[in-house]
């Protein structure tokens, strides 16, 4: 690092800058940004995935508002999505971008999570970063689930019907929760209306402040380097300034993401199925979205071993336990040095990856 970065106020005789600076403290922020650095090492590539996730979330907000201009929840839901897709100019593109970006966002969030896990970036002092990230992932999957129903076509109808079987498998209170979410005994216009309220008001109101907290923590603690890099003496660790070097690369990643999204959304436009009709049997080969495939397949496999209600409850318990262990990993794997616990956490992570990938593949294989 250069030695001449001792910040002295930039002697700019600009009265407008001075006026704003005096009130907002721009110089302090600039000084902070100048001192912030990002570690450079073989795994630096993984640092971009949080930023990519953030960018895709912004795309979701933007395209979501555009869809909101014509979407009508309730009984007219399907008709309004049909109108967006086939009547409004480029409506198909906006909708396709929203759907593709949602999938890409879940994907990049998962990559981000696993890179944080394997770089052990959840260790002190970054526990809250890990916890808030897990909460954000949880809300993101509810975003995905609720948004999937909104077009009210065949696939969304059956996905919601099946998906709501999960809360209803909770002993005692499960059926009441499912009925509350459904807005009645059957998936219908009331379900769309309340999923809509969830999707565009409740979830953003939870997600955005939590995201702000998550980003503030990153600013506060900086990027974590993997333990092997942290073990090196300071003279051997490399870093680059956050501003403008890392930001520039971050923005380049955003541009690449936007291009990938534009390509996918326009070349593979998101389909709109037939209108949902409870009297029409489920179409052949119907399967959950890829990010829900693994838990569904695990439940199915468990159901083969332990049939009936016992299997359902055992599955839910096993899931809850696995997720709880995953969330609590910062409080188990705490040591700075690699030891028994660090290795156990590492293998637990590998087990999770292998389980997720293999059950996803099996799930797709089974629905072929």
């Amino acid at each position, binding site marked *: 690092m250069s030695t001449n970065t001792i910040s002295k106020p930039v002697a700019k005789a600009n009265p407008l800058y001075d006026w704003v600076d005096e009130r907002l403290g721009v110089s302090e922020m600039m000084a902070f940004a100048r001192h912030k650095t990002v570690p450079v090492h073989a795994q630096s590539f993984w640092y971009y995935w949080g930023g990519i996730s953030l960018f895709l979330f912004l795309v979701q907000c933007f395209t979501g508002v*555009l869809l909101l*201009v014509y979407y009508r929840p309730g009984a007219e839901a399907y008709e309004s999505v049909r109108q967006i897709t086939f*009547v*409004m*100019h*480029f*409506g198909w*593109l*906006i909708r396709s971008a929203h759907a593709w970006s949602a999938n890409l966002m879940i994907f990049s969030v998962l990559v981000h999570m696993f890179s944080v896990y394997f770089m052990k970036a959840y260790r002190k002092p970054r526990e809250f970063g890990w916890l808030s990230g897990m909460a954000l992932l949880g809300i993101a999957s509810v975003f995905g689930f609720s948004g999937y129903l909104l077009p009210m076509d065949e696939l969304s109808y059956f996905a919601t019907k099946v998906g709501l079987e999960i809360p209803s498998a909770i002993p005692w209170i499960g059926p009441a929760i499912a009925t509350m979410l459904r807005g009645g005994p059957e998936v219908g216009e009331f379900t769309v209306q309340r999923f809509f309220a969830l999707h565009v008001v409740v979830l953003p109101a939870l997600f955005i402040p939590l995201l702000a907290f998550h980003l503030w923590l990153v600013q506060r603690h900086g990027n974590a380097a993997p333990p092997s890099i942290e073990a090196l003496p300071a003279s051997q660790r490399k870093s680059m300034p956050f501003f403008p070097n890392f930001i520039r690369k971050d923005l380049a990643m955003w541009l690449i993401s936007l291009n990938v999204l534009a390509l996918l959304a326009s070349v593979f436009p998101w389909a709109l199925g037939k209108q949902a009709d409870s009297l029409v049997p489920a179409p052949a080969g119907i399967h959950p979205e890829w990010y829900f495939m693994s838990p569904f397949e695990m439940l199915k496999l468990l159901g083969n071993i332990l049939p009936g209600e016992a299997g359902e409850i055992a599955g839910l318990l096993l899931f809850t336990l696995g997720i709880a262990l995953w969330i609590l990993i910062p409080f188990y794997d705490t040591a700075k040095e690699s030891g028994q616990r660090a290795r156990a956490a590492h293998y637990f992570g590998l087990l999770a990856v292998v389980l997720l990938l293999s059950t996803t593949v099996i799930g797709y294989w089974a629905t072929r």
Partner: protein
Amino acid sequence: MPPEEESDLKTRRAFLAAAGAAGLLYTAALAYPIYRYLASPNEMAMNATAVTEVTLKDAQKLPAGSVLMFKFGTAPAMLIHHVDERWIALTAVCTHLGCTVQYEPQADRIHCACHGGVYNPYTGANVSGPPPKPLKTFKVAVNETGVEVSRA
């Protein structure tokens, strides 16, 4: 300035100009679909206003001294069957600030409740209040099956 440095400056300038142009094109490629998407209803309305004639089925049965509100294209309009058997059709949009006006048979006037504008129910002329212009009238043809209203 030495010649190499000058040519460096030139290629630098050319690069920046090309990058700027590419950026503009990129932004335009993003903005165009969004603009067209948001402008869709207006385009549809424009197609609808191209209407030159509206047939009001069974409107010939409208009793004398009463009014029928209808849409000419996308804009509100009114068909008045006067007590003296005259048929008059006018736009129903106040020329002042765009409120929908009302025919009042007892007072024999067209009144706008927003700011008290008054029009003549036969000619559409602005009689009193703030309206700056008269209401436009349409051609009316009454037959056994309905009333045909067309642009004058």
